């Protein structure tokens, strides 16, 4: 039986070159399905890892109660001070709470060679902001000077937008800023412009903050901060870890992409399944006499089914691999920027992970299986005498 199956499969595969056309249909069809599926999920994956890695579990993000995003939140200067003094916050080397009250505004920047602007987050931070984000490094130039209209630019923005090279002057909301450095952090902050919070407040004529970040004192820190602030009538805030916040921000987008990937893949998979069916029916048809002859010699029906299935699966696998390679070559690490849920640009990279490739291949194999099964059964059911006559 094994020998029969191997012999029949080998016969089928060796005649594939004579039927390149239909065989290519399977390969190309499934390459398309797997490439699209992998690319869409790679986008979701890249977006997720970019935004999620931004969040630290040991840093609390405090927003005004009921404001789901940093951009919607507003805290007065006094409230900012009260929040920093909350219990459960680590003390910095200067003896003050390790905390950064920050303010964000949206500025319109122009991509190189484009006329329409994109919304970019400008973040005013306090000196402790850097201690709260150890992953952030100045990679070029220097940090901004407190008190001066100086900016540092995230790596995700450098190269993509006009006026953000070091030494250039960037005009935002009617004021001129000097770009003095660029930084890298491997997460969503890379899509931001940073400056001194005091300068930002005076320049943009804002008095309060958007949020306060607190370094939590141990595992119980979050609870202590939450309870402490809840008990204080002067503030009404939401407290969560930075990680929870970012994960929450991307949930919607990830769900959307997941559904999109599902729908698009399902439609394409349906098409590819019919293409595979068609191809394998043609393959079986072209080999009618060959199969009938083997049956006459005494080959069983099961090896016929198996050999057709194996051929279909191998073609599907080839298509899947081509698709995965295509997705990897074309999309992996491709940087794209998109609208985050708070209407700011987030720059992230497609991540074609081994898990995604594996899922794509499983889909390809499933389609190959379905596409091969019916033709295989038909090939095995064909009466030998009729098939010999037809030839």
């Amino acid at each position: 039986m094994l020998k029969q199956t191997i012999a029949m499969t080998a016969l089928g595969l060796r005649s594939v070159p004579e039927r390149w056309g239909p065989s290519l249909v399977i390969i190309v069809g499934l390459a398309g399905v797997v490439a699209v599926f992998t690319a869409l999920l790679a986008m979701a994956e890249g977006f997720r890892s970019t935004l999620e890695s931004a969040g630290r579990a040991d840093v609390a993000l405090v927003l005004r109660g009921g404001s789901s995003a940093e951009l919607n939140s507003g805290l007065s200067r006094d409230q900012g001070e009260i929040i920093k003094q909350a219990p459960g916050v680590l003390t910095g080397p200067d003896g003050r709470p390790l905390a950064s009250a920050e303010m964000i505004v949206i500025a319109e920047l122009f991509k190189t060679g484009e006329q329409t602007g994109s919304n970019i987050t400008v973040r005013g931070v306090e000196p402790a902001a850097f201690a709260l984000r150890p992953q952030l490094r100045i990679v070029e130039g220097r940090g901004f000077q407190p008190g001066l209209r100086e900016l540092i630019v995230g790596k995700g923005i450098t190269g993509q937008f006009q006026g953000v090279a070091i030494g250039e002057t960037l005009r935002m909301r009617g004021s001129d800023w000097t770009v003095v450095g660029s930084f890298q952090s491997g997460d969503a902050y890379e899509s931001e412009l940073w400056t001194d919070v005091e300068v930002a407040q005076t320049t943009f004529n804002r008095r309060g903050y958007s949020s306060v970040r607190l370094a939590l004192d141990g595992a119980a820190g979050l609870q202590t901060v939450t309870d402490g602030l809840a008990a204080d009538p002067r503030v009404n805030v939401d407290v969560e870890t930075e990680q929870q916040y970012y994960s929450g921000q991307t949930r919607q987008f990830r769900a959307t992409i997941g559904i999109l990937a599902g729908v698009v893949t399902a439609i394409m998979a349906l098409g590819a399944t019919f293409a595979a069916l068609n191809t394998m029916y043609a393959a079986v048809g072209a080999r009618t006499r060959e199969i009938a002859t083997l049956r006459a010699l005494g080959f069983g029906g099961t090896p016929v089914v198996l050999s057709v299935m194996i051929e279909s699966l191998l073609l599907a696998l080839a298509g899947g691999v081509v698709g995965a390679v295509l997705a990897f070559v074309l999309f992996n690490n491709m940087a794209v920027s998109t609208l985050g849920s708070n209407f700011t640009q987030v720059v992230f990279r497609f991540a074609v992970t081994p898990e995604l490739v594996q899922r794509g291949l499983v889909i390809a194999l499933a389609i190959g299986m379905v596409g091969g099964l019916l033709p295989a059964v038909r090939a095995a059911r064909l009466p030998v005498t009729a098939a010999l006559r037809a030839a």
Partner: protein
Amino acid sequence: MSEAMIRVRDVHKSYVRGRQQVEVLHGLTLDIPNGDFVALMGPSGSGKTTLLNLVGGLDRPTSGQIEVAGVRIDQLGSGQLARWRARNVGFVFQFYNLMPVLTAERNVELPLLLTGLSAAQRRKSVAVALEVVGLTDRARHKPKELSGGQEQRVAIARALVSDPTVLICDEPTGDLDRRTADEILGLLQVLNREHGKTIVMVTHDPKAAEFARRTLHLEKGQLLEQAA
């Protein structure tokens, strides 16, 4: 006639064509002794191929009995029938039916894949079969590189290689010129006389029938007189 190799008893065979049933063989009875070489002649559509397929175990009769080498093949299931064919029958077709992607020796080897023989044993049997048909020097050629006569020799080697008791040949020379046909028929004669194979051969060619020990005439699903 002591022991018949092939015993056909009151065999009916009908096909369903569209909505109606067409009977092709009407109660056919026939004995073919061991070591016989029978030529089966008759007009087109008389049921020659149908009879051959029944005797070769490719199909089952609608009613009646068929016994080959002591086995009631009309009672076998399709899986059993396939295994029975592999051991007992060699088929030779009009258009050779070789696998185009395989060399001559690989084609001849095919029936042996259904046996428990080792690769070395298979190689030996293939060499012997190719030698019998005189094609040892063409073992590595693909069908495309062979003449029609040579292709049919390969097909005969394939039919022989598992040493079956019966050879079933449906117009084996129908696609060959006179000289080549005579060579193939001479080969079949040798297989019958020297190797003791029982051969049933359908042919339209009276000259081909002369190579057989006797000729049966089939007309409208019934046998006419048996010529000696």
